[in-house]
């Protein structure tokens, strides 16, 4: 049973130069209890997708078309008032910039418990107790509840953000680059924490990152996005087939592999205001065919639960 089912979603931004097609026909679903990692370069539409699910797009952005089914109900059709009941209660999000995501003039306790006061009938005392529990579960001493964010390190702030996101026991957690701004040791701790909580709370997780190793450590499935489109969707054990996914995989150094300097992927991300007719990755692809310029490849199932959008795979029949 899927908890999130996105159908042909299109999200655009109004800009001076015209419509920017940040998400252009994305289709994927997330099963209950499953965790999916979404990877891609910055500016490919990952964060936009996260914000669209909660309908928290900035004023210039809007959902042009498509559906986002959450437990069978279309979020796109829901009013702001209905969405507020879902945000923080059923679907929570943890943002990238932990530095600034906490209000500097409110205590940690106030900020964790305020969600409970909104979504449940708990009294202030009960909510504070629950907040305490939540803080313990992310590994922070409960007497920090009355402290202010500026006394916390980056890693601790991110733990607080996770505690506050999970305090209402949501079904789905969206984590948008949860460890990007942190140093490596802390990254590992936070990922471990996410893994543990996922298990304990039977949480579904949508993890957004540009770091493939993060996905490998945390997720069951991987979605590769590029230029507002999904290029590949696979189980974490499968080897990735799309040329872009391969490049992405290669551009991350492997500790156990030979010592080579990462090459990165040549070229720049595509123009999303006037996109080409063909495959979005074609200009940077080293295996492109004639058809790639003219026609956009569709997402096809190459083997069980493994989808790829590439002409080369279709023709070679892999």
């Amino acid at each position, binding site marked *: 049973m899927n908890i999130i089912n996105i159908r042909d979603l299109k999200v655009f931004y109004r800009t001076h130069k015209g419509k920017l097609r940040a998400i252009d026909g994305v289709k994927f679903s997330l099963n209950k209890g499953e965790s999916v990692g979404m990877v891609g370069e910055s500016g490919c539409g990952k964060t936009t997708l996260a914000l669209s699910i*909660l309908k*928290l797009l900035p004023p210039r952005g809007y959902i042009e078309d498509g559906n986002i089914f959450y437990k069978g109900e279309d979020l796109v059709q829901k009013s702001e008032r209905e*969405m*507020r*009941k*879902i*945000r*923080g*209660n059923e679907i*929570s*999000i943890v*943002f990238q*910039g932990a*530095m*600034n*995501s*906490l*209000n*500097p*003039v*409110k205590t940690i306790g106030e900020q964790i418990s*305020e*969600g409970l006061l*909104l*979504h449940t009938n708990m009294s202030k005392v009960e909510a504070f107790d629950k907040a305490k529990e939540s803080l313990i579960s992310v590994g922070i001493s409960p007497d920090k509840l009355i402290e*202010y964010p*500026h006394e916390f390190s980056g890693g601790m702030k991110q733990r607080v*953000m996770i505690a*506050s996101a999970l305090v209402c026991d949501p079904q789905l957690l969206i984590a948008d680059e949860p460890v990007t701004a942190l140093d490596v040791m802390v990254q590992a701790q936070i990922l471990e924490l996410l893994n543990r909580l996922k298990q304990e709370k039977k949480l579904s997780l949508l993890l957004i990152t540009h770091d493939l190793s993060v996905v490998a450590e945390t997720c069951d499935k991987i979605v590769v996005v590029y230029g507002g489109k999904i290029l590949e969707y696979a189980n974490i054990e499968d080897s990735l087939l799309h040329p872009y996914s391969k490049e992405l995989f290669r551009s991350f150094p492997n500790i156990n592999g030979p010592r080579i300097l990462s090459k990165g992927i040549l070229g720049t991300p595509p123009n999303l205001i006037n996109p080409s007719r063909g495959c979005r990755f074609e200009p940077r692809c080293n295996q492109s065919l004639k058809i790639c310029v003219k026609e956009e490849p569709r997402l096809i199932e190459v083997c069980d639960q493994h989808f790829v959008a590439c002409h080369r795979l279709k023709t070679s029949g892999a």
Partner: protein
Amino acid sequence: MREYLIKRIIIIILLIWTIVTVNFVLFRMIPGDPVRLLFFDPRITAEAQKKLASNFGLDKPLYGQYFIYLSNLVKGDWGKSFLYREPVLGIVTKRLFNTLILLVPAVLLAVIIGNLLGVIAAWKRGTKIDTSILSFVLICWSLPAFWLGIVLIIVFINIFPISGMTSVGSEYLSIFQQIKDVLYHMILPLVTESIVLVGEYTLIMRGTLSEVLTEDYITTAKSKGFGDFYILRNHAVPNAMLPMITLIAINFGLIVGGAIQVETVFSWPGVGRLMYDSIMTRDYPVLQGTFLVVAIAVVLVNFMADILYPYFDPRVKLK
């Protein structure tokens, strides 16, 4: 905390000392022998003048006069008014009370309305509501306080009292009726002062709040499911209020400037009107005394804002 306090106190003492010195120099270094203006009221006899001269050490060199001036200030001997024949300090303190009665509610009203308008404008940024508030506020901001006062007098001349603080013979009324009488006299000057201040506060609030609303923690609050109003009240405004405290203090000179004009126009017996009267009658000792009081008051208010700020902002830890 202690070190910070001591540092601030030293700065404040230096500032006050500088103001006192400037005050001394100003009234002595001016062409036309202001010493004569300051001490020799033409209305007193030559003998009394001589006595005054030795009292103030005018027969001594300038630095001697300076120390006598300082010690007299500390002792509370601020000179004698030409006009009222009373010690300056007494007159000024009496008037200061009247000024505060008018200014405190006027500033509070302006802060409340200004913040409210600023919050609405920032919240509805770019809409027609924002534009109308901005236009209104810009006009308020460019109104000379004295002129606004006069216009209000012409309009309300038959409705509200336009001059002074009390009605003739009000001292025979009961205390309750006396208070009512003062409040009644206060309406027009209070409204005038508030209107000229409201513009500044609205613009500041709108600016700070617009910036706060782009912060990440606002998005966080939205993602928790809170509505605009809750976020505004519990997350955005508390953060935007912090700079307000400092800015109101920094712009305290503005409040004083407005008070001088408003008190003049409405004959409100405060320090501002005293200053105007002393200019018109060339009562230099009083002018000197009022300037000193006003300048020191402004410095002290800034000092208080500096001291109080850390209590509102948890980020500022005093060591």
